[in-house]
């Protein structure tokens, strides 16, 4: 594999890079013979799933690997300090530094100046105890003698550049005083203020809501155009790739399996893995609408005219969290009406803070209801006593978002799955429940032997299947799934969703499917309800809500969602800009 230099000279030229981590279990080669190059002003997307080596590759550009890593090959970074002096240096004579061989003191000088990084989680990469202006200025001070006044001036300028309103005033504020999207803008400002030739953006929008993501993508798109900055974009989101990238490198298991310009890659993927990856991405409207026959089965069991009594019925549901120190209570859910019929899947969509998880928790009896009425399997939850709710609880299953933390690490999978059976007195102990556990594991397509393993011995997708098995252990009438696939890779997510849909059809349980991902919800739900700041703004079948959204927020939400098709996305971008 040789480096493809697309421009006159590359900002970064990775040549045959191999990164090996020495671990207790022997050496692990995370990156194998990767060659990449990025031209000035170009956006290169490196895509792949977790463990594919894309982040390790990106971090090696700045020499940010832990001491357990050994690198072979070369990472040639165009040296800006020299680049500025030698105006118009030709291709052959471009001064470059090999990052992999730099002494620590020189490496420090390269970092930020020649290439700067934008990280995934803006809340965790901003220091909570320093003002944002100081943090922006720190980068400047690391590379040059800058006076306090000048550093402040340039920090204000950088904040203005990334679209923080009132930067003269905001420069002295602390990170917790900004919203998530603004924090990511500040992180980008920290990189921009150093005027690097290259910005490495590692999953820059993964932690953000869709509508905020659209804003940040818009900002990132301006960089190459206005400043000539090249961007290496690390992401697993094919929609983001289609929206932003000029060229794409697909990584799988430490290697680059395919490299192409963005149009070619989406139109005609060559490698099998790329094809599978693109196929696994859930797309809105992709589902063949098979719900009608499925629904008629349910309806047949009940009198045709009168719909069966709903499993969940909320009227004017209001949930508040008490405020701290006599501050007013926080209203998480405000006057929501919704209902779930037996055997129906209701998709509850919203961004962070919309109250979707709170509703799920209230239905499961985990959060008290403050006002209105919420009837779950015939029990009124407003003011319910634990004793009244207990018999209902066994008829409800719950699947949590993060399969890594929802299992007790000290119990085997079989013990975890058996827990609801034991707690509700169906089985005496975990071993007595084993036949049922085996049955459940089989239903979620896990080998029986996995029952004897511990949670950490399973992959994320396998754990989420086990979590599904646990939720289904008591054959519930209602399943609440709170973002069950958001922590999973796209291809794993596709398999879990498929399994989920099949089980739902077979077992016929009603389901509240909570997610921030419209496409995922569209895949499974019979009806979709859209929440915005605790208020239900729109509700209807998938076709109604997604094809013809009525509420301004739903429209904005849909328009913000980047679709994995560069041509279509370019058109959508314009419509989104009109809606802003």
């Amino acid at each position, binding site marked *: 594999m040789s480096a493809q230099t697309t421009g006159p000279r590359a900002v970064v030229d990775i040549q045959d890079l191999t990164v090996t981590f020495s671990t207790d279990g022997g050496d692990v080669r995370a990156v194998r013979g990767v060659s990449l190059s990025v031209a000035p002003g170009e956006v290169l997307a490196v895509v792949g799933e977790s463990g594919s080596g894309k982040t390790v590759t990106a971090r090696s550009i*700045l020499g*940010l690997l832990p001491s357990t890593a050994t690198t072979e090959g070369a990472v040639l970074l165009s040296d800006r300090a020299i680049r500025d002096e030698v105006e118009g240096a030709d291709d052959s004579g471009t001064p470059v530094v090999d990052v992999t061989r730099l002494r*620590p003191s020189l490496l420090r*000088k*390269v*970092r*930020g*100046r020649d290439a*700067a*990084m934008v*990280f995934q*989680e803006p809340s*965790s*990469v*901003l*220091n*909570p*105890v*320093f*003002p944002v202006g100081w*943090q922006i200025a*720190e*980068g400047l001070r*690391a*590379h040059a003698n800058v006076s306090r006044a000048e550093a402040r001036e340039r920090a204000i300028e950088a904040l203005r550049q990334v679209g923080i*309103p*009132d930067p003269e005033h905001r420069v*002295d*504020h*602390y990170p*917790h*005083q*900004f*919203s998530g*999207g*603004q924090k990511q803008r500040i992180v980008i400002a*920290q990189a921009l203020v*150093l005027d690097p030739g290259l910005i490495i953006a590692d999953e820059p929008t993964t932690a953000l*809501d869709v*509508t*905020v993501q659209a*804003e940040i993508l818009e900002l990132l798109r301006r960089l190459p155009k206005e400043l000539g900055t090249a961007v290496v974009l690390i992401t697993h989101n094919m929609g983001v790739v289609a929206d932003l990238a000029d060229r794409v490198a697909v990584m799988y298991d430490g290697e680059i399996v395919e490299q192409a310009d963005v149009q070619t890659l989406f139109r005609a993927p060559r490698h099998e893995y790329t094809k599978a990856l693109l196929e696994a991405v859930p797309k809105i409207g992709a589902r063949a609408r098979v719900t009608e026959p499925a629904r008629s089965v349910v309806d047949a069991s009940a009198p045709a005219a009168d719909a069966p009594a709903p499993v969940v019925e909320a009227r004017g549901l209001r949930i508040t969290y008490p405020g701290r*120190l006599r501050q007013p209570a926080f209203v998480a859910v405000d*006057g*929501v*009406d*919704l209902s779930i019929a037996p055997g129906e899947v209701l998709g509850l969509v919203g*961004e962070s803070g919309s109250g979707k998880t709170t509703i799920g928790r209230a239905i499961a009896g985990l959060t008290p209801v403050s006002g209105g009425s919420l009837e779950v399997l015939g029990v009124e939850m407003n003011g319910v006593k634990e004793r009244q709710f207990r018999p209902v609880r066994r008829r409800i299953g719950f699947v949590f978002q993060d399969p890594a933390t929802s299992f007790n690490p000290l119990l085997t999978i079989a013990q975890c799955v058996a827990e609801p059976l034991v707690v509700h007195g169906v089985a005496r102990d975990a071993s007595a429940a084993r036949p049922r556990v085996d049955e459940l594991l089989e239903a979620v397509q896990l080998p029986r032997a996995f029952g004897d393993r511990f949670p950490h011995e399973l992959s994320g997708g396998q754990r989420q299947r086990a979590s599904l098995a646990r939720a289904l252990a008591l054959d519930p009438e209602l399943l609440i799934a709170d973002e069950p696939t958001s922590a999973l890779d796209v291809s794993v997510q596709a398999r879990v969703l498929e399994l989920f849909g099949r089980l739902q059809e077979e077992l016929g349980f009603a389901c509240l499917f909570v997610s921030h991902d419209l496409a995922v919800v569209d895949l499974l739900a019979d009806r979709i309800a859209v929440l*915005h*700041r605790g*208020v239900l*703004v*729109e*509700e*209807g079948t998938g076709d109604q809500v997604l094809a013809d959204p*009525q*509420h*301004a*927020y739903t429209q904005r939400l849909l328009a913000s969602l980047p679709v994995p098709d560069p041509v279509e996305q370019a058109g959508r971008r314009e419509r989104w800009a009109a809606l*802003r």
Partner: protein
Amino acid sequence: MTSTTPAAPAAPSAPAAPEAPQRRGRPAGSPLLRYLLVRFLLIFPTILILVSVVFVMLRLTGDPITAALGGRLTPDQLQERIHEAGYDRPIVVQYLDYLGSIVRGDFGTTISDNRPVTQVLLTYGTATLELVVYGMLVALLIGIPLGRIAASRRDSGGDATLRVASILAYATPVFFLGMLLKLVFSVWLGVLPVSGRASTISTLKMSREGSSTGIYLIDAISTGDGAVISDVLQHAILPAVTLGLITGGIFLRLVRTNVMGTLATGYVEAARSRGVGERRLLRKHAWRPALIPIITVIGLQTALLLSGAVLTETTFEWKGLGFQLVQYLLARDYVAVQGMVALIAVIVALTNFVVDVIAALIDPRIRY
């Protein structure tokens, strides 16, 4: 399911909703003031509870007169003294009476040597205060720089050595360490005084020429005599080091753990990725956020330092609260003991308030 009115006025779908600035923190200090006021008011219930617990605990064993003088006086004499002091009244009345006199600053009169407890507290409290301040200084001087070094060289030989040393320091009993230091520096090397707060000459000089704050360093400086100052300082070294080493060992571990934690955070890595040097990362970026939990624990340690002071004072005959507390305990003078414990409770409550103030100054999330 009717709530689908497109332009629902109730829905706050204001312009650019997701990025609306969160203007809850104006630099003006009203939330900070409220925070500090609440913390300050919390001092009073804390002290009330502590004083009440001490009162109940001591009274469970009977009245103070019998405890102190029982066996030495005839039952009739005892009864008379008990009646005089009002210890035969209902316990609730005594309790309210006690609380009332505390509010007036009256802690009663000691039984064994018939002194006002308030005076005892003032005299010996200052001595203890001086020792605790010295001990805290030594602890901070040891704990903070060495903890930072250990954190930055994690798992190196130096780190391991410091960790073992810190365990040794805080696992060693105070009196043993005190004896050991005395043996080496006072007996073998003969460079430092064995015990006491000052030599007799210095004490005389201070009482004649100096101020009478009870804090010897201030009194010594006010005499303007270099020999007195040097003498007072020499007497302070061993007790301060004894007390400080123990707490310093704990501080070292505390600083090491917290700085290691913040060194591993995303924001330190992010600053590193922009070229900030390792030393500055340690001293600024990782240090300030690590300081928040450190300050809190240092506040809690003050209580431990005070109990350590009791043993240190006894070992070095440093005539402070702890030294005197032991005397009164041996004499079973519960009125005096009660007053001293109450004072210690007040000191601990006040320290925790100061810690809350400092934490608020460091952590902007409390401040705004």
